[in-house]
């Protein structure tokens, strides 16, 4: 049966080649779209490691001042300390802390971390004591930062489990140095947190280091952001009160206050827009291709009326015809998909798309293969039904 189908398809190879090409390209398009979707969906369902509800982000200093340092320097001394102290007065604020890199935005700071000759790249962010209370981080082992750390001659850091596994494997990271061994002042692990995903849900989880910032009162200490956890139910009206206090505490500096939930929502929208556009375009291409396929198969069937009629006259059942038409379509589709899979399989070998893990890659491959088979079968249903209804007598008169 299969061999026979192959012969039938081979006999009409000229006409089928274009359909094979169409399926081949459709598969590539679908694979790209599905894999991309699977990649982001996979990232999205993993835990963030912190809670953003009821947390407000305050950016200290406008973008301009941040880039150029165009701000009165004497005013910057102790600025973080003074701002945090001012915020502590409000009963609406449960906890507050300073941090350098904002959450839910593009871009990270990266550094290389070492352990016994092993090196790994990780993102990092400097934070002040109490950051864990604002963000509700989860500690796996070890301890948080504390005020007594000011006296240490090394920098305490918290690392996430991913980095702990990558750098230490089964060893215990607590108390070990992870900075460049040639540097004098060392970064030493005091605790391990479950996770910390600075760029939000869509981005791949990465190795992360939270570095304790010692606020000693020099201008360089100024943190670019302050995060506060407000009591549930605090309204936006409280924002102005905070803003007034901030402006009074640090003259000449600009602030922007935004609830993190809102920052997250607009950042997600910003990241999703291009993905959505890609999805819409891919869906449109697939609809177009399926409609085209229906047309082509239909035309094929009409053209082969005599052949099908003859088969019916010689005793072929309607079901046999039905299976034949669909079978031919499956063979053609398989050829296209085989070529497509062969090409796509080169991608990991060539080192392209390495950012997509093997699992996501396989899911993308499997889903797009299944989708194309489903689509072509659906396209073949109606024409093959028409074919099975051809009457031998009518068909044999055809000319």
């Amino acid at each position: 049966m299969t061999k026979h189908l192959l012969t039938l398809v081979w006999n009409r190879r000229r006409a089928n080649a274009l359909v094979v090409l169409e399926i081949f390209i459709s598969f590539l398009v679908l694979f790209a779209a599905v894999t991309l979707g699977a990649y982001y969906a996979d990232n999205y369902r993993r835990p963030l490691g912190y809670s953003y509800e009821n947390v407000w982000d305050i950016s200290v200093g406008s973008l301009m001042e941040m880039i150029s340092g165009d701000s009165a320097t004497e005013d910057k001394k102790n600025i973080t300390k003074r701002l945090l102290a001012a915020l502590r007065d409000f009963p609406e604020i449960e906890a507050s802390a300073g941090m350098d890199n904002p959450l839910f935005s593009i871009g990270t700071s990266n550094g290389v971390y070492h352990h016994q000759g092993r090196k790994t790249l990780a993102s990092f962010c400097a934070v002040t004591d109490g950051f864990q209370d604002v963000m509700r981080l989860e500690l796996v082992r070890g301890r948080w930062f504390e005020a007594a750390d000011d006296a240490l001659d090394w920098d305490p850091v918290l690392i996430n489990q991913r980095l702990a596994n990558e750098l230490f494997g089964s060893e215990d990271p607590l108390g070990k140095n992870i900075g460049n061994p040639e540097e004098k002042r060392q970064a030493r692990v005091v605790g391990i947190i479950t996770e910390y995903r600075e760029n939000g849900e869509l981005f791949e989880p990465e190795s992360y280091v939270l570095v304790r910032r010692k606020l000693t009162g020099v201008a360089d200490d100024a943190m670019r952001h302050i995060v506060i956890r407000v009591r549930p139910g605090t309204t936006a009206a409280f924002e102005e009160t905070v803003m007034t206090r901030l402006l009074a505490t640090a003259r000449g500096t600009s602030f922007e206050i935004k609830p993190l939930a809102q920052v997250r929502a607009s950042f997600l929208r910003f990241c999703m827009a291009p993905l959505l556009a890609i999805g819409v375009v891919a869906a449109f291409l697939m609809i177009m291709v399926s409609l085209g396929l229906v047309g082509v198969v239909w035309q094929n069937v009409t053209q082969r009326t005599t052949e099908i009629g003859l088969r019916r006259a010689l005793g072929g059942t309607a079901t046999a015809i039905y299976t034949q038409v669909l079978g031919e379509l499956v063979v053609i589709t398989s050829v296209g998909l085989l070529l497509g899979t062969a090409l796509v399989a080169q991608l990991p070998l060539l080192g392209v798309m390495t950012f997509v893990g093997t699992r996501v890659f396989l899911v993308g491959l499997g889903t797009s293969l299944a989708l194309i088979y489903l689509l072509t079968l659906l396209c073949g249903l109606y024409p093959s039904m028409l074919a099975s209804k051809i009457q031998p007598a009518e068909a044999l008169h055809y000319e």
Partner: protein
Amino acid sequence: MLKNYLKMAFKVLLRRKFFTFISLFGVSLTLVVLMVLVALFDHTFGAYPPETKTDRTLGVLFVEFRSPDDHSMINGFAGYGFLDRYVRTLPNVEKVSLYSFPTTAVSYLNGAPVTSWLKRADGEFWQILDFRFLEGRPFTPQDEKDRNFVAVINETTRKRFFSDGPAVGKFLEVDGQHFRVVGVVPDIPILRIVPFADIWVPISTAKTDTYRGQKLWGNYLAMILARQRSDFPMIKDEYHDVLKRVEFPDPQHYNKAFGEAETLLDVASRAFLLERGYGESPVRRFMAWLILLMVLFMLLPTINLVNINVSRIRERSSEIGVRKAFGASSLTLVGQFVVENVLLTLVGGGIGFVLSYGVLHFISSTGLIPYAHFGVNYRIFLGGLAITLFFGLLSGVYPAWKMSRLHPAVALRGRG
């Protein structure tokens, strides 16, 4: 003859409605996708007011500073001090304007925070750009010099703060500073990054005057209006020369400056091509890439159309046989089928235009891109027409050529 072809084409289109529908669906939606992209491009780079003098405007958008050993570099907007000293003094230009990249600024309206994009600009900014004023006037170089707290606002800001009534003469609190409104302009789309802002105020009203310092990088851009377009090479050379003479405040760390007086499209092209160097304009290569990507995108719709056309023409093999038997050459037949296909795609193109208009309207109304109002103008129309014709030819030639080679005897029997 052409009339005959068209008549016949029309009849054929009506004969197999399903096939016609598939073809039109593919053509029109392909066109919609391409038209939306073209409109987006035109919206960002086309010459629209207030940027009416783009043909003789250059900009200093990014500068790059490198350390003596080239290991560390800073690439970004320049500082005010740098531009003031080295770009504003360029000879042989008509005007130079300095302005900041917009930053967000917060105001409180009855306790509710309102975020606006604030741009600081000098008086020349309003002289180079042709803003239409709904009311009032721009601020002037004198306002900048006297550190007057005046502001020009856009329509949306007027609606937010003054509920649409006249705003000139009223006061506005932004980021803790108070400004008197002197003018109101229509909303500028966010993608027009040179003029865009919600609120424009003089540079000198900055909270501190440290921006005037020697800092090389910062948040400022420059706009250079040339006397005529042919001066561009001269101005670019002069800017290169000036960059070689820059005095560095901290030469151990940074002692080299690179940059180009260029257009926004130059910058975008470089970014797209991931090129870092400065020099020859990359716009042509950028365009070549865009066209290549467009053709790649059209590949699938084209193959689809070819497949349908092959089926459709095969149905007409007896007609082809008759025409061949009466002496029609292959070339004539190819011509006929191509004309038919171009007609089909043009109909699809027409539908595509109407749909694109709707889609663009929809995108504008979602507010996904603030203040964007995409329209279809003659440039976009011509672009779409060119795409459609190209599409029609591409998908018509192969099936036509294939069928025109049928042997008359075979064709007459009605078998392809």
